[in-house]
């Protein structure tokens, strides 16, 4: 293995991504793509489970849906930012809501990016993750 490939792999190695998404199929699809790209994954179907997995799995980045049963994505995001243990973890919002107000709200609450699921391929989402964890 060349030196370049070694260090690239080391960049991805051991990075855990937490996926908070209530749709099972989408959650599995993106999880599958992440694993193929060499990431470790942690999954949550709602906000409460998401907060739990944050403590348990200590992810390096969170992919956060907004429409969730129970507490919504915005609530999860503000709780993360209020907690010094989690406030530094980059959050990418992955939602199908796309109104300008939602995007602004998400970015204002501290998300590093806001992606509309229907507009991005899994590969493009991985690129955004790589940029955020750099």
């Amino acid at each position, binding site marked *: 293995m060349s030196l370049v490939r070694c260090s690239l792999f080391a960049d991805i190695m051991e990075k855990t991504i937490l996926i908070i998404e209530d*749709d099972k199929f989408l959650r599995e*699809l993106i999880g599958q793509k992440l694993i193929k790209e060499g990431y470790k994954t942690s999954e949550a179907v709602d906000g409460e489970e998401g907060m739990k997995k944050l403590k348990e799995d200590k992810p390096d980045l969170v992919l956060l849906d907004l429409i969730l049963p129970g507490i919504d994505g915005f609530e999860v995001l503000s709780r993360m930012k209020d907690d010094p243990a989690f406030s530094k973890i980059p959050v990418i919002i992955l939602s*199908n809501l796309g109104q*300008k107000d939602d995007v602004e709200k998400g970015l204002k609450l501290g998300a590093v990016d806001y992606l509309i699921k*229907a507009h991005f391929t*899994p590969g493009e989402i991985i690129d955004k993750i790589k940029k955020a964890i750099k």
Partner: protein
Amino acid sequence: MDKQEILPVIIANFPDGILVFDEKNNLLLVNPKAEALLGLSTGDLTNKPISELKNLSVFEPLAELIGLEAGSKIKDVFRGKIKTKENLTLEVTTASLNNDGGKKGTLVVLHEVTREKMIERMKTEFVSLSAHQLRTPLSAIKWTLRMLLDGDLGRITKEQKSFIEKIYRSNERMIFLINDLLNVSRIEEGTYVYKVALGDIEPMVESAIGLYKEEIKRKKIKVEFKKPKERLPQVRMDTEKIELAFQNFLDNAIRYNHIGGKVIVSLKYDKKEIEVAVKDTGIGIPKDQQDRVFSRFFRAANVMREGTDGTGLGLFITKNIIEAHGGKVWFESEENKGSTFYFSLPME
């Protein structure tokens, strides 16, 4: 009762509001329904000079709509709408009152349309909600097909790839349609928020042309960008929306063009406005269809025959965006020769 006696009774009981102004725009008559709709009583209204009437807060939107000024002619209004209170929307119609002696005054009719407005709002919300809901399964399809095409789910044959690429494009079209529907419903709601700031048109045009790189290459279109040598002045605009407005022109110029056709984008300006033109050598618009070009969902007969796709919403959206900026949209077109679409934006 005879005809003469019953007329005042009719006016007093009429289910719509009636106001009558004389030739000098003094208020002659107000019926009970008009008072109820405006939340005022007769004492407040009759014999008051216009200046005072206009100052009454409920009267203000009405006065503005009908152009109520001392000495000027009250505007002809056909179903103008005003909102006087929360939950009260009125449809206003004015009519000139003439008899053999000439113009005697103006009739203003107030008709309540609150329920219709609410239904319109519910329809818009429904479209918005459905569109968002539809995005979820469309995302699932998009991601799965993409992973299939990228080989993430195993090897696929060349033939399989060709088919899957077609479904992928079909799915992308649905996603674009959802976006257009959302934009249209937002325009109708009036929540198409405009974030206006000074911006540059040139880089916006160039970035839009960049977005269509693939399609331009695929159809072998020659794109020319003509602009003045000096840097254009900045324009006050919502850059994201203006870029969308321009993209719709560019999209049409490419979509309805022939393989190897030409698209010329030109910019020019004077003291009053900036003008952007997009000219194509495409199929053009038949003369008898030209007056409907900017209508929602309208697609001309010749494109239906060609089998090209399109939502029929692009130009409707562009017109709304440009007009909301105080600009104008217009076009010239000849069937089988091509079209040129223009929009102008006012300078500060």
